[in-house]
């Protein structure tokens, strides 16, 4: 009995979509457009997110140690720093590595390499590059570095320089730009999802308004509310499913076409690379949004004619 009724409900939902072909086409078209915008925003948001992540990764606080500091002291210092919840990553570069890095970077610049050879000592300092969990954590990390007293014999002499204070203004400005960009990207995505929902909701409401007589007759025949409502929810789900699949497929050529321009402008990986690598996640997200919007819109629209 339950199986038969479920089968009938699915059949009725499908038949509604097929027999109402023009209206179904209109809803699926609007749904596709809306989900396309949402999908594009998600991809673009991913590009923005990777760009901001990249920028964020470039921001760090570097502590330079005086040449007399032993590695043991530096490691002790690093371990102590690592215990801070604000610290995401610490990279240690020894004096020798710093020199090698520099040489490698300027391997084609003979003048620079000659200049280095003239010097008796290694001019580079051992350093710790510290990356924070959040952009706002740098201030507290810098304060910690200032007050750190693990070198009880003479705490101030081992740290030669902390570059946070030299770069503070740039770091703060960059942090602010990153945070604002992230906030606005998310806001725009949410806004687009909301607008899409409103458009689709109103179209589905219109369709169900056109079916109000049918709903009334079904009720007078003695059909249960769920039997009247569920086929409409199934139809709404089908609109969402088809719309999301078509929207995802439409994103293929569009992301491919726009990818070089986005790459040139923002750097990092292009739209198309994200489309390919996140295809299954993207289609899953769009299906969930599409089906949910279709089903919820249908539920809210039928409620008006059933729950009285």
């Amino acid at each position, binding site marked *: 009995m339950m199986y*038969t*009724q479920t089968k009938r409900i699915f059949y009725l939902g499908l038949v509604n979509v097929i*027999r109402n072909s023009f209206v179904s086409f209109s809803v699926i078209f609007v749904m596709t457009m809306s989900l396309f915008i949402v999908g594009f925003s998600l991809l673009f948001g991913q590009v923005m997110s990777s760009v901001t992540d990249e920028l964020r990764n470039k921001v760090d606080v570097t502590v330079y140690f005086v040449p007399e500091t032993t590695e043991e002291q530096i490691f002790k210092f690093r371990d102590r720093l690592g215990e801070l919840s604000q610290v995401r990553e610490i990279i240690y570069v020894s004096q020798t590595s710093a020199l090698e890095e520099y040489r490698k970077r300027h391997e084609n610049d003979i003048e620079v390499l000659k200049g280095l050879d003239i010097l008796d000592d290694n001019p580079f300092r051992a350093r710790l590059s510290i990356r924070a969990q959040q952009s706002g954590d740098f201030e507290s990390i810098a304060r910690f570095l200032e007050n750190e007293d693990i070198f009880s014999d003479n705490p101030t002499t081992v740290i030669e320089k902390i570059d946070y204070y030299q770069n503070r203004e740039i770091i703060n400005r960059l942090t602010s730009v990153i945070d604002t960009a992230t906030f606005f990207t998310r806001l725009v995505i949410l806004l687009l999802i909301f607008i899409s929902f409103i458009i689709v909701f109103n179209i589905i409401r219109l369709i169900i308004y056109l079916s109000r007589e049918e709903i009334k*007759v*079904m009720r*007078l*025949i*003695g059909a*249960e509310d769920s039997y009247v409502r569920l086929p409409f929810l199934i139809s709404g789900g089908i609109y969402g499913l088809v719309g999301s699949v078509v929207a995802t497929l439409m994103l293929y050529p569009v992301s491919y076409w726009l990818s070089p321009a986005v790459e040139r402008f923002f750097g990092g990986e292009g739209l198309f690379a994200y489309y390919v690598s996140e295809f299954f996640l993207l289609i899953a997200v769009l299906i969930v949004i599409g089906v949910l919007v279709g089903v919820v819109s249908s539920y809210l629209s039928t409620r008006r004619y059933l729950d009285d």
Partner: protein
Amino acid sequence: MDIISFEKATKYYGDAIALQDVSFTVKDGEFITFVGHSGAGKSTLFKLILGEEDLYGGTVCRDGVDITSMSEAELLEHRRKTGMIFQNFRLLSRKTVYENIAFAMEALGYDETQIESDVPYALELVDLRHKVWSFPAELSGGEQQRVAIARAIVHQPELLLADEPVGNLDPVNAHEVVNILKQINKLGTAVMLSTHDRSVVDKVKGRVITLVNGEVAMDDKKGKYIL
């Protein structure tokens, strides 16, 4: 046994009186015709029976149970035991003739085997077997009304309400519909028919209740009426 009973039923739409102290009973298997001009209260009477409208005063009972105090489940059960035919047919436009009729049974949870045997029988009764896969828009008014009748009787209801079923039909089709209703009544279903068409009342013969301005002006078993 009274299948339907009205006891001083009163209904207002705003300040306008739709029904005033209406009392009558309908017995199992009875055929009653309600006559009256437009606005006399015939449709309101049927809406009250179906539980579509609330009463202002009095009671309307089905098998002794007050319809206005029925739970949602009881109301559904009551509707399932009642067939309804409307003046404007009210067929489901996106369903075929077969589906329109089968839908009533599907909604009530009948299994496929039962549906497959009962729908053709109902279509046979209204002489529409040849139009089984047509859509309502492809049928004439008379044919649409016959589909509506088939839909209303396919689950063999105890009571059939026919609200102006011939109002939109030509005389030939109207008389055909009346014949079908009489035939259904002979099979044991109580029929309540409303009309303002004298020829229909004269053809039915039997108990007639005349409504004037929402009140029962005459209730005559021999078929007398005021119109």
